[in-house]
């Protein structure tokens, strides 16, 4: 094939992937928007009454659950991930970093059903026995997600810490700073935008994760009042009900998808804006 021909072929492939993304987006909105407008956006977003067979479509409890589960995952995953990234990028011998970083990135490739399985097997009984409640809970979901977002946070944070020029470190150390003072006062501020991006992308992963959450969260349809309550997130709702939904019910699930889509779009755009502002 001539290089002109290859160029054209690549262009067609690129356009078709962009095109199918656009189609998917359009389709989700096309299917979901009418129901949101019909129910009234306020009712749909803030009511906690979800009874599709009775024509009640309020996803308020699921939004709250998704938000709390995600925040919980961040509370666990961000300090742990950042600490890990700082140790590997700044304090560990180079060779250890070269071995551990790809290993950690490999963790991102483990199917989420495996995380969910481990959660059901170990975490859920642990919570049930030591903290009470059914075990399947908001807490279980937050812990599992906190672990699942570690590779994202660690890997991107390490990259942004490594991108800070040694010139800054040398300048700080030569003024009598310790390694830790240097990290805290120069390296972290210099890597800030990369680290924020890491956190936002981790957050996106947590919001969107489905399988592991279904397995450990308990999926109850009510507003959680404690960390030990079983909850249902937006993603779980779609996955659990799409199989048998039809008509307005099906539309309501697409509408749930619209809300998720918007949340994740906002997160990604924020990440892109932060990265660009360097």
């Amino acid at each position, binding site marked *: 094939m001539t290089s002109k021909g290859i160029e054209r072929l690549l262009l067609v492939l690129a356009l078709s992937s962009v095109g199918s993304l656009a189609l998917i987006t359009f389709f989700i909105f096309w299917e979901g928007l009418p129901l949101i407008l019909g129910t009234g956006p306020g009712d749909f977003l803030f009511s906690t009454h979800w009874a599709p067979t009775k024509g009640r479509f309020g996803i308020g409890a699921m939004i709250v659950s998704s938000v709390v589960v995600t925040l919980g995952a961040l509370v666990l995953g961000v300090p742990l991930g950042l600490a890990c990234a700082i140790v590997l990028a700044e304090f560990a011998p180079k060779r250890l970093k070269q071995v551990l970083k790809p290993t950690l990135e490999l963790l991102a490739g483990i199917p989420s059903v495996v995380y969910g399985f481990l959660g059901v097997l170990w975490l859920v009984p642990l919570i049930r026995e030591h903290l009470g409640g059914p075990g399947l809970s908001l807490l279980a979901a937050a812990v599992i997600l906190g672990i699942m977002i570690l590779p994202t946070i660690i890997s991107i944070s390490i990259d942004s810490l490594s991108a800070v*020029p040694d*010139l*800054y470190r*040398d*300048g*700080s*150390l*030569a*003024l*009598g*700073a*310790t390694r830790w*003072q240097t990290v805290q*006062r*120069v390296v972290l*501020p*210099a890597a800030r935008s990369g680290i924020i991006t890491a956190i936002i992308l981790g957050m996106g992963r947590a919001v969107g994760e489905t399988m592991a959450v279904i397995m450990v969260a308990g999926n109850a349809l009510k507003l959680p009042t404690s960390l030990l309550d079983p909850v249902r997130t937006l993603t779980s709702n779609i996955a659990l009900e799409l199989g048998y939904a039809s008509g307005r019910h099906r539309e309501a699930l697409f509408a749930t998808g619209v809300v998720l889509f918007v949340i994740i779009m906002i997160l990604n755009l924020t990440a892109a804006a932060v990265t660009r502002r360097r």
Partner: protein
Amino acid sequence: MTTSPDASAEPQAGPPVITVRGLHLYYRDFHALKNVSCDFAGRAITALIGPSGCGKSTLLRVFNRMNDLIEGVRLTGQVLIDGQDIYAKGVNLTQLRKKVGMVFQRPNPFPLSIFDNVVYGPRLHGRPRKAELEEIATRSLAAVGLWEEVKDRLGTPALSLTEEQQQRLCVARLLAVEPEILLMDEPCSALDPISTLAIEDLVSELKERFTVVIVTHNMQQAARVSDQTAFFNLKAQGEPGRLVEIDTTERIFSNPKEKATEDYISGRFG
């Protein structure tokens, strides 16, 4: 080569502040500095000259132990600063580096505000009050001739300054920790000729209060600013660097003892 403290003492310069005895330095298997012995006078400027790769930067990093950061560096011999062996056990690196400051080849202000750059050192070494910090910032910036230019925008990022201003800021940042010795590794190599002259003036002024060791590729610069010059050489690339001679700048540039020195200097001036 000067080996006794008195021999290097010039009328205007004080007693030696830095004394090196039989120094060998290795990067793993590579012998980078071979048997260097010399004295650097206090309140004077010593220039280190010599071809690229002869170990000038390496020697400079010996004096504030920045070589410790490089894996596989080994050193034998003695390095005394104010009579203290800086490689003895139990030497406090923070104290040493406060006392022996360094200006780098490329200006390296931190990506922080001008103010935060200047007071970076004082904040490391204590919890000074705001008024004290402002006092230190004013004094340090004034000492490098930057105060008038930046006094109205201390909060702006240091990286928005010109390269020359940035290098001045790096000197100010150093002065703020009140060092006694300033190590400068080709501090003008990233600057244009006019900025270079400006920094040279600054270096000359600093001599009044500090002991300065400056590495330079620029013979005119060494001749203009320094009181004492050390010429380093190496037989060939990959051979260790050696100190050929150290003497007053006047003698090194007018009638050096060693033929190699004369060849190098006339070659570089030519």
